[in-house]
């Protein structure tokens, strides 16, 4: 009897899902040669160019006037339109979190404190509903990051197209470290300042121990290469840490409070680590120190509350600009899941509050590309680069502007998402009230 009930329930669920999904799945992307004609091309690195942009085989193969066009190319008239490189968000949970309040749909926060071996890429869901919602806004490439614990795991850069995580992978991985903090986790963090301090010291010791153990582990591993008699136990944690500890692989160091930023900088210097600071909500307080260290910063969300009650109301908006002015290399992230599409607006607020439009634009294009060592492939419109770009009818920072067509890796992306499909279905709902 119970069994039957379950079957019925299962069927109902399937019916329900099928009904919903049929209206929600966006169309297929198309690949080929595309000629974007008569456009204003904001290259980011080489100024503004008027003319055509050719996409072939996933790459940009021509920009400007003298472009040899294959007969097969689909021509898109871009008169009065502007082309920008796809925006890059260096800190999101996109693909890892579907509905944040439902824990079984959250794949970003594994149990454990030190877990560098966890690969965010493994758990990226290519069918996440938020992916089309994000990419139609011109954000083409994001870091999907794990969270929680001292070492949260390994983050991955993904392009927002593909049927498998591997197809989406965009060429950059980094371990994500939550740097020990003495700050409160929120208003209801009831730990005393002493307890928080103690916890910070404990975590810092854990971190330093991890570094020492990894160095030893690496030595043994190396020795093992020339002496087969040496036995080494399976230790995925230390194994995954080797390239980071050696300073070969970049590590994303999440740190926000003033004092924590200073200790992180010292720790990075002492250990000769290749690092990017992420968060840096209070970066403006120690902007000169960050600039002197030469460590780049990914900051955001820009649109947020100041960290202290005594702070000027616009500190969060002005943070990116203040760091940039001091000489820090600054990229901007949303630290978001379903609203990563707001990335251009975060950059716009930074622009309005001291960063300037040009720097803010670079902070979500070429700057992150350089930070990840991908400046030959991403972040600007140049011949030879991957065709991640979009066509729009104005300044993409303005809410009024419409993003008309997005290309990712040369694929012409269907400009639909759950949001636009629901709009199409319900603007003039049929049947209405009376029929």
């Amino acid at each position, binding site marked *: 009897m119970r069994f039957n009930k379950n079957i019925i329930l299962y069927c109902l669920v399937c019916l329900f899902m099928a009904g919903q999904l049929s209206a929600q799945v966006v169309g297929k992307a198309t690949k080929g040669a595309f000629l974007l004609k008569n456009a204003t091309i904001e290259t980011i690195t080489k100024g503004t160019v008027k003319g055509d942009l050719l996409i072939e085989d996933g790459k940009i193969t021509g920009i400007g006037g003298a472009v040899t066009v294959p007969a097969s190319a689909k021509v898109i008239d871009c008169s009065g339109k502007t082309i920008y490189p796809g925006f890059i968000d260096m800190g999101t949970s996109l693909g890892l979190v*579907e*509905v*944040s*309040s*439902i824990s079984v749909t959250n794949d970003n926060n594994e149990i454990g404190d030190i877990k560098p071996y966890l690969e965010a890429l493994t758990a990226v869901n290519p069918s996440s*509903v*938020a992916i089309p919602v994000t990419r139609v806004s011109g954000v083409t490439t994001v870091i999907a990051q794990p969270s929680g614990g001292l070492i949260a795991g390994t983050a991955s850069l993904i392009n927002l197209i593909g049927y498998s995580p591997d197809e989406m992978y965009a060429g950059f991985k980094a371990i994500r470290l939550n740097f020990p903090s*003495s*700050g*409160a*986790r*929120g*208003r*209801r*963090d*009831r730990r005393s*300042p002493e307890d*928080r301090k103690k916890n910070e010291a404990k975590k810092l010791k854990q971190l330093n121990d991890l570094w020492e153990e990894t160095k030893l582990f690496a030595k043994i591993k190396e020795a093992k290469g020339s002496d087969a008699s040496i036995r080494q136990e399976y230790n995925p944690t230390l194994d995954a840490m080797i390239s980071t500890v050696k300073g070969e692989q970049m590590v994303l160091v999440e740190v*926000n*409070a*003033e004092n924590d930023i200073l200790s992180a900088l010292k720790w990075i210097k002492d250990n000769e680590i290749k690092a990017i600071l992420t968060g840096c*909500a*209070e970066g403006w307080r120690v902007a000169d120190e960050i600039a002197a260290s030469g460590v780049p910063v990914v900051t955001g969300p820009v*649109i*947020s*509350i*100041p*960290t*202290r*009650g*005594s*702070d*000027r*109301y*616009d500190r969060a908006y002005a943070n990116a600009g203040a760091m940039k002015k001091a000489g820090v290399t600054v990229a901007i992230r949303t630290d978001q*899941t*379903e*609203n990563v*599409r*707001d990335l251009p*607006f975060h950059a*716009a*607020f930074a*622009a*309005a*509050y001291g960063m300037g439009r040009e720097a803010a634009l670079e902070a979500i294009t070429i700057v992150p590309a350089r930070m990840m060592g991908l400046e030959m492939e991403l972040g600007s419109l140049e011949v030879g680069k991957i065709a991640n770009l979009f066509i729009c009818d104005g300044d993409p920072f*303005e*809410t*009024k502007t*419409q993003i008309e067509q997005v290309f990712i890796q040369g694929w012409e992306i269907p400009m639909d998402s*759950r*949001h*636009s499909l*629901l*709009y199409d279905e*319900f*603007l003039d*709902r049929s049947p*209405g*009230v009376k029929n």
Partner: protein
Amino acid sequence: MKKYNLLFLLLFAVAATLPAQTEKGSIHIKNATVITITKGVLENTDVVVTDGKITGIGKSLKTPKGARVVDAAGQFVMPGIIDAHSHIALDAVNEGTNIVTAEVETGDVIDPLDVAIYRALAGGVTATHAMHGSANAIGGQCETIKLRYGTYDPEELKMEGAPRTIKFALGENPMRVHGEGSGLHARTRMGIEQVFRRAFSEARDYMAAQEDYNKKMASDPQAVPPMYDRRMEALADILRGDIIIHCHSYRADEILMLMNVCKDFGVTKLVYQHVNEGFKVAPELAEFGAMASVFADWWAYKFEVYYSTAYNAAILTRNGVVTSINSDSGDYIRHLYHQAGKTQRYGMLTDNEALRLITLNPAIQLGIEDRVGSLEKGKDGDITIFSAHPLSVYAIPQMTIVDGVVRFDIKEDNDDMRLSVDPEDTETMMLDYDDDHRCMEGTAEELFKY
């Protein structure tokens, strides 16, 4: 001596019963682009406020005596922004101990010292709806406040004469707090419906008993009055049409359910809050005359908002539903002009349609549209000045004026604008400061988060 004491006491008693005297100011804003909302956009125009009220909109107006003069050439002047859903300036948000708490009032817990008030002013906001949270199907009564930051008197924040409102909540929040959290009715949307039907029915009985008593009183001075009950009084006032319902809601089915309940009990004043699936039942909302106060683009953070669209405000507007954009956040309240701008990305609303979502429409939803929400002669001097068109992402609020009094001026803005500093506040950085000022604040679920 004793006599004087008595006199003093009497005087004090009289003073305490008088409504709070709020500060009113006079100001002359010159040569601005004036966005009136109701009467178009006027170039090179002055706005004059005398003793808290708008007394003139036009060219080359005379400066009233003692008025501050502001040259706003090249700047944009619009009505003060109104947030129809906020939890700033409140000491407590949820009385989560019962699924019906119509007797409590956020007006009793106004915190005039909350620095979030100043931050909202710095985002051009002049009035907010200080709401009870969404833990209960029938929550507490709410308070419409003006952001008169600077006063230490909670009474002075209250917008005198604003209609009474009450918070209702459907769906996951009351289900989680009561059904899942406490194992008490209601755990489903079926149960939630019955909470309203029971509460309204009991209120009807309460009213009938009162009526009987009033009739009896005429002939029998010994008649026994029914027990006085604050909860029943509030519910009865809803049935009488004296309180506007503001209902936290998400799914189309529950939205329809509450309209059906209201129809059965003759309740017509109904505003839905959040109402993420309002777009699915926009024709029904329009027919009922129910209004909608929505997020610009929040979705997917829980299951009941998974099937959402950022085009919600546009679809509702196009279907004739009076719609506003609200913040429900100490962060978003600071950039509602930007949130309203998103209805142009998602649904291509006109400039005026978009700005109505944060001015006149929320005023209508709070029943204060004869006082605020547009720039018109006779209305309150609640005004915001922007550096550029307020729907441009580069616009920066320059000055915010409440009742003719300048409450935010970017030129006089200091780092620390707190009115009162807790000497024990260690001033450690807090990242999720914005966890405050939210709908579920103060519920067990939220307390257990850490």
